[in-house]
Each structure stands twice: as C-alpha cells, then as structure tokens.
C-alpha cells in the first residue's frame, strides 16, 4: 500500500492556456512531509493541483500520486487521498450527518467514527445545514471529510485563505495532529506564507507558471539573507551575488541566496534573517533586478 518514496512526483508538467503556460513543472512531496506550494494569485498553483487531480487534462509530463499514475490509477489514488479547496463544495442544504451518509458509500475506507470524532473535536453541529455554518466551520467540515477515510495524502488549495488567524492556527494544529501518524503527506498551496512558515517542511515557489525555487524550508531560510545598505553601498554589490534589490527612500534591501558567502565577501554589510514572504517577493522581481 505505501511502497512509494514520494507522495507526489511531478515531472515536466506542461499545460498551455491562452496567455498562460504552466511550464515544465517538477515538484516532489516526499512521504511524511508537508510541502508548501507558494505563489502569487495566478502563478499556477491551482492549475498544477487541478492537473494532478486530473480535473484538467495536461499537455505533457508525468504525474504520480502515492506512486500511482494520476490517470491510469486515478480511482485508486483518489481513494487514498483527501482534497480541500478554498470554498466549501457541499451544497448548502446538507447537514454533516447527511454528508457522512454520502461519503460513507463513496470511500472504500470511510470511517464513520473518525468523522464524528472530528465533528466533536472541531465543535461542528451535526444537524446544522452547511449553509448556516461560518466560513471557518465549513473549512473544518471539509477537512473532517478529507481526513475520515485514512487518506495518506492531503492536498489543499488555498484552504486557509479568507480565514481569520485564530481559525487558521486551529487548522494548522489539525494538520500537525494528522501528520503524527507516520507515512502521511500534505501538499498545501497558499499565498499566506506565514502559515507555511509555521508548518511546512519543504517549500516550492511558483511564479508565472514556472518553479522559481524549491527546497527544505529551514535550509532556504538559513541560506537566504536580507542585506540592508545605502544606495552608495549598493553599487559595490555584484549583480550575481543577489536575487534582486528593493530600492526605497530609506535605502536598499538585497536578497542573497548564500548568506554565508555574502557575509564573507561583504564583511561590513548588515545581513538579516529573512522570511518566506520576502524570499518570494525578491524572486518574483528577479527579472527586473531592481524594484521598489
């Protein structure tokens, strides 16, 4: 059942649309890891996820989910994974109890006790209609469904967007609990990088249909650094030593991908730790090199 190394393995995924191309995407979610899929709105996160789930046909590339081909073994793969979208897909007339009856027949490994356990844990009313639930409650209900059939892989597309910080933190705790049982993996797409900073093991940056950067979160945060300098000092930096430069009235900020090397080469410079959000911003503007 779990003889795979990577829960998700995407190689050379390409999908053309008018005005947008998902270009040769390679993405891996190692078994037992939470991978944050970061990018601006319209960067290609949802298209990648829809391609993985065979919601949209791909032009070329290979996608494996839990070691299974995403088209040939589609049904088997979908039995073993859960998906959470940004909006609640259950009709407003359903109650959680009725939804349980629906999903009980759809999933081979559906666990009724687990589902009701999650409803209690998330304090979701069993007989209240979906239309009467708050956005946070609807999201928790979606998560309860996704986690109640022993899914080995959880795919979330902007699941925490539009939720207040308290609910977002509660949801992140749910994912931490889910990961306590071994061999489980999560791919979490979001543009809220602070959430991923708290929970992700690995991070993949996508922009304009291309993967800009990927790696272990701690390594990325450790290797990258934010150099703060004056405009005069900025002239001394070689362009190949920084990703891009943010220039404003107070001075210049440069993002370096090799903090240790930069510290040696520019010994007088102030190099600070950075965040995923800043890394994303500087990479997105890498082509322009200078931005404000």
């Amino acid at each position: 059942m779990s003889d795979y190394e990577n829960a998700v393995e995407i190689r050379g995924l390409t999908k053309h649309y008018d005005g947008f191309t998902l270009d040769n995407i390679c993405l891996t979610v190692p078994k037992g890891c939470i991978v944050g899929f970061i990018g601006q709105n319209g960067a290609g996160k949802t298209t990648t996820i829809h391609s993985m789930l065979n919601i949209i046909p791909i032009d070329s590339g290979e996608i494996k989910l839990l070691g299974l081909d995403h088209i040939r073994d589609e049904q088997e793969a979908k039995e073993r994974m859960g998906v959470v979208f940004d909006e609640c897909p259950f009709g407003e007339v359903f109650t959680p109890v009725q939804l349980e009856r629906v999903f009980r027949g759809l999933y081979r490994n559906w666990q009724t006790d687990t589902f009701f356990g999650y409803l209690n844990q998330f304090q979701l009313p069993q007989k209240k209609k979906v239309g009467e639930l708050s956005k946070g409650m609807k999201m928790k209900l979606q998560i309860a469904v996704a986690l109640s059939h022993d899914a080995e892989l959880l795919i979330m597309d902007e699941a925490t967007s539009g939720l207040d910080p308290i609910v977002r933190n509660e949801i992140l705790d749910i994912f931490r609990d889910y990961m306590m049982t071994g061999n489980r993996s999560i791919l979490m797409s979001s543009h809220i990088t602070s959430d991923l900073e708290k929970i992700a093991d690995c991070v993949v940056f996508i922009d304009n249909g291309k993967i800009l950067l990927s790696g272990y979160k701690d390594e990325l945060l450790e290797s990258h650094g934010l150099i703060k300098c004056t405009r005069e000092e900025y002239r001394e930096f070689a362009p190949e030593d920084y990703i891009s430069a943010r220039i404003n009235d107070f001075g210049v900020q440069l993002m370096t991908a090799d903090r240790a090397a930069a510290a040696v080469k520019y010994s007088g410079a102030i190099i600070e730790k950075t965040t995923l959000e800043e890394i994303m911003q500087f990479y997105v503007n890498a082509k322009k090199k200078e931005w404000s």
Partner: protein
Amino acid sequence: MAKIMSLIYREWILMRKKLLLGLAVTAGLLLLITFIGFSYQNGAFDGNEKLCNLFAKRGGYFEVYPVMLLLTSVAGTSADAYESDIKSNWARYSMTLPAETRPRAIAHVLFMLIRFIVTFLILLAVSVVSAAAFGKPFAKEMIADIGIFSCLALLPICLVEFFMGKARDPIAYKKQQSRIPIAFAACGTVVGLLLARAMKSAGTGSDPFTVLQPLLDKYVTIRHTVQPFIIPVFIGLLVLVYVIAKRNLDSLKQS
C-alpha cells in the same frame, strides 16, 4: 453499487424539498378532485348541462390531467440540483472523489427512474380515487395516459439536462438557464399552432368544452396508436438522459 446508492441519496437530499412540495400540492389537488367528484354525484352541478355531460363522459379521468402534468414535471426537475452544485462548485470537487463519470451518470438516471416510478404509482392511486369519486370504474386507458405524460415530462428534462449540465460556473449557468424558457417557448408555439390547426379543422365554436371535446377524441385515437411505443420511448428517453449526463460529466475535464 454503494457509490451509486450514495450519489442517489445525495440527489434526493438536493431535490427532496421540491419533490415533497409537489406531493403536497398533488394531495391538495386530489382532495379538490374528490370534492368535485362527490359534489357531482350529489347533484351539485345539475344546473350546468355541459359540465354534467363532460363529467358523465370523462369524470374522474379528465380531471386528473392537471395533477399528472404537475406531478410529472415536478418529479422530473433536476434544475435545483444543478443550481446547488454550481453554486457550491461541486463539479470540481466531485472530480477529486473516487467515482468515475459512469456511476455518477447511472446514479443520476436511476434516481430519475425512481422518481418516475413513484410518480407513476401516485398517479395511478390518484386516478383510482378520482374515478371512485365520480362513481366510475377505473379506466385501464389511464395507465397509458400516465405513460404518455411521463414521456412528455421527460422531454423537457432532456432539455434541462442538455443545457444545465453544460454549465461550469454561475455565469455559464445563468446563460444556459436563460436558454431554457426560449426552448420551452419554441416548443409551446409549435404545440399551440398544432392545437389551433386541430381546432380549426374540427370546426368548433368558442365554448371551451365544445373545443376540448374533438381534441380529446383525437387524443384517444392518438393514444391508441402510440400505446405500444410508450415503454420503448420512455426507456429511450432515459438512455438519452444518461448519454447527455455522462457526456456533460466527461466534458468537465475538457475545460
């Protein structure tokens, strides 16, 4: 099978409000027909010769038609389910579930068949009660009438399936929804013209009962002709609904 049953249950939850409403209205109409029937038997319409003649000839039989029309059309509607699914973006989510388009389309058609069987049985009960209220024996032709009405009700359902099932988002849904009244209006115009032609050739006056009589007579002839084809046509229409539903589900991936 478990998947199909689950999906049928899902459709029931989505549509049950309207289906139960249809049943409630039918029960009300049945009460009204029964009341008219007993009133007629007790001589309440003795002053109206034409009405008495009509009841004498077709009592407990002719009056059931509006109930048929109402119940079959309500039983058939899937528009509510489509609207709910589009609003909640169910189509996208359903593609993440371990259920292929085939069981989903089968569940859709099976639920439709269940609705029609239940409707058929209710209509049968309605016609028996109605006939008894007018002091008439149950006419076997009623079964053929119910079958014909069921086929007629399936035609607009095919239209709904064809147009609504193609919609992917609320904007496309509204666009498709706006096409349905146009399609119905076109069908209504054709039926109206045919009726007008039939009335003209019958050479009747403006009295509704006199106008209806030759049409009903003509219908009896048509019924006799189409009777052997009712079940094959009904099955054919169900297959058509299945093909349209499956094609619409398959095409969700093409966007």
